[in-house]
């Protein structure tokens, strides 16, 4: 069974992504939620998910900091950035830090469906 970590300070966005995963994935999966960067790192280390969905603009610890810590702990971690930040420099920094992909909010249903096939 696939395991996902959804890290986003917005509860609405976490639930929306979870609903879209349920819509697009035929097989059962487990999800762990985190609402800030600190929780994301801790959850990753404990839960070792197959895929992490990581927001960048979060309190306590930013998603970019969390990304670097997750990759430092596990260079094979698969982290997808899902963010409102549309700056190219942010995109480039995230991929340089080890994210496997970067998509912007608001989440587009069709794009997520296509991407899931690539990521998984």
């Amino acid at each position, binding site marked *: 069974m696939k395991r996902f970590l959804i890290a986003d*300070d*917005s*509860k*609405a*966005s976490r639930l*929306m992504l979870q*609903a*879209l995963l349920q*819509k697009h994935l035929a097989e059962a999966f487990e999800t762990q939620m985190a609402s800030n960067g600190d929780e994301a790192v801790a959850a990753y280390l404990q839960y070792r998910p197959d895929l992490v969905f990581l927001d*960048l*603009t*979060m*309190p306590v610890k930013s998603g970019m900091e969390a990304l670097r810590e997750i990759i430092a702990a596990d260079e094979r971690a698969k982290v997808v950035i899902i*963010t*409102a*930040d*549309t*700056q*190219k*420099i*942010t995109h480039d920094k995230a991929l340089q830090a080890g994210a496997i992909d970067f998509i*912007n*909010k*608001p989440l587009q*249903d069709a794009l997520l469906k296509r991407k899931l096939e690539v990521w998984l």
Partner: protein
Amino acid sequence: MTQTSLFNDDQADVFRELINIAYGRAAGLLHQFTGAEIQLHVPQVAFFDYAGFIADIEHNIAPQMVLSQQTFSGRLAGETIMLLSATDARALSGLLHPLQPLQDDQVLSTIFEIGNIITTSSTQILSELSQVPIAYTSPVTAFYDPPSLQTLLAGIRYQDVLSISTYLDIPQHNVFAKIYYLFYRDALALLANSLHT
């Protein structure tokens, strides 16, 4: 500041995320125009009465300020206010005009354009998500000292307004501005239903 029962925590979460998405769009455009990296912050949500809003503005007053105000209308009616010190306004304007020192009128016209970019690009995504059209007035941008800002604020009579604020923060260039998105009461339900699968 008054937090009322007009919205609950889940709705506040949706308002916060909407402005996060909306302002993220604006930040991408500003990054394209200026080349500067904009640091995004988690937006703050509050429901202000008039006194609360004025108190929040006064908390950010510097000896000389620039304020850019732009109204949008339609079912999603409100306005944006960008408030920054004159020093920050000159630094921000200098990002778009790096080769020459700017006169005050050039600073104002640049802040006018930046305010317009922020308002239109960010509220367009709100318009798409809520599926209602938004119309804009031209921004009003001016320098203010504390007494003239007080006079301006005295002319604003919000009964109550949803304020979602964030920052235009460009650390590398010492630019820091507060941006308010103000929505009138009628827009609350529309906004609250704008994020859904």
